[in-house]
């Protein structure tokens, strides 16, 4: 038996159900709109602005810096696994790697990239 068969069945059922519930109301329901019906539901208020709030730019900046350093740190794992084979040479290389990262970090810090104000 094909190992995908359950997946396929599940997908088919899901699709059919979704389609059914999307299409049926359009076919069955009667539509008699009036202004009152079209208002926001019950105690709701007319939105005056976009729903999603805006984060300050700083937030994005810090998030970006985090992403960069975090992902670079991922390079440590394979290095750590093979460190016993790489010996001193490998250690030195990682030192260089960290120094380069460190200079970048220092530059960002000194230029005020991390200040929250």
């Amino acid at each position: 038996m094909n190992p995908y068969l359950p997946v396929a069945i599940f997908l088919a059922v899901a699709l059919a159900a979704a389609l059914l519930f999307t299409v049926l109301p359009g076919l069955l329901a009667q539509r008699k709109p009036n202004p009152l019906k079209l208002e926001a539901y019950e105690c709701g208020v007319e939105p005056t602005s976009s729903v999603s709030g805006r984060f300050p730019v700083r937030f994005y900046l810090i998030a970006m810096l985090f992403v960069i350093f975090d992902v670079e740190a991922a390079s440590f794992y394979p290095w750590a696994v093979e460190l016993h084979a790489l010996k001193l040479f490998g250690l030195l290389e990682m030192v260089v790697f960290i120094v380069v990262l460190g200079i970048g970090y220092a530059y960002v810090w000194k230029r005020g990239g991390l200040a929250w104000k």
Partner: protein
Amino acid sequence: MTLPFTHVDWAAVAPLEVLAATGLLVLLFDLVWRPFAPRGLSLSVAFLGTILTAALIAQQYGTNVAAFNGGYIVGNFSVLFGEVVLLGTLGALALMGRGGSDRESAGTIALLLWSACGALLLAAAATTMTIFLGIELLSLALYCLCGLANRKSAREAALKYLLLSSTASAVLLFGMALLFGASGSVSLAALASPAMVTNPLFWMGSGFFLVGIAFKLSLVPFHAWAPDVYQGAPLPIAAFMTVVTKAATIAIFARFAYAALPAGASQMLLLPVWAIAGISMIVGNVGMLAQHDLKRLLGYSGIAQVGYILAALAGTTRLGLRYAFFYLVVYAVMNLGAFAVAAVLSSGDDEEGTQIQSYRGLGARRPLLAAAMTFFLLALAGLPPTAGFLGKILILAVAAGTGYLWLAALLLVGTAISLYAYAKIILAMYRPDHRVHAADIPRGAPLPWVSLALCLVATVALTFYPLLPSGLLPLVK
């Protein structure tokens, strides 16, 4: 287990290390000495580092090292293309020294140098992995560089470049994945096996790979970003991009076309590239006709010029590669020259005054500059007394000699169209205009002047290339 890499490998990439370290140094100096550092310190360090790198690369001429498991192949090919990349970098650095504030310059210069590192890597890259690394290093730095000027158009250029170029990078990467799947190796050389001819993964992978390359080369229909980005980007960056990006990508393409294709497949496999190269010659030159901004016009011109260079490669002959390289050098020099004139004339603030309208009456006010600009434009158009003409003749000869007569014909048609566009600027310069006085025009910083003069000398000198006694130039047949 032995060490994966030895000191031989590290020695091979010494120029790259020096260039990257120069970038770091520039940042460090800026960080530590900012209040005391003399003006232009960052620039001087960058110049020294770049020249040192160029010297190191020149030393590698004649050697042959395959470093990093064949990922980085040092040879005459990488040396020559590397020197063109550094030439473009020096040119762009020279244009940066046109006054204005030093404030942002350290970061900009560091990014520029790292971008050049990527290009250098590309010149020697021989596995898909190093190619990807090089292209991304080159591009990522450029996204930032494009957006660094404080005006709307620069930011817009950065965004457009980012979105489109990342998409193209992803396509390129997917192509690389398929190629890896086809050969089981990241090495380009592994693709040259005859078994590949019947492998669908290889064909699809090559297709996506070439799309990515064609995008970086701004060939039609992957060209749309180029004029917008060149117009929006700051002058030195636009100059850098037209020369360095093209040189590095041509290197990759040449390596792929010459060394990575199984015998028998290469003609059919590369046919779409030659086709779009031919289309680019026409579209690029036609696009120039209705432009009002010099940088934008040179962007369109670049689209066509890449088409010319590819026409030389079309037969994948050694002679073609040599002529393509010659034309690349000529293009680099004349293009940098044109940008240098623009930089001398630009006011140094964020609005760079590259509107063609602002060149009106230049002939009367600044005859030297106007003459230099005329010369560079004539060279770009490929008119007879210049090196541009020689380059085109050689390309024509090799294209026709290898049977790509239709590319040669398209080249001629494109050249004819471009004459009108270049003539428009030249005429604008020599048309009297009484609205602007000589005093209103900036004198220009010394560095762009130097760069301009050097480009002028080089463009003239390259014309005499065939006079060299070495017999480098057996004209085809």
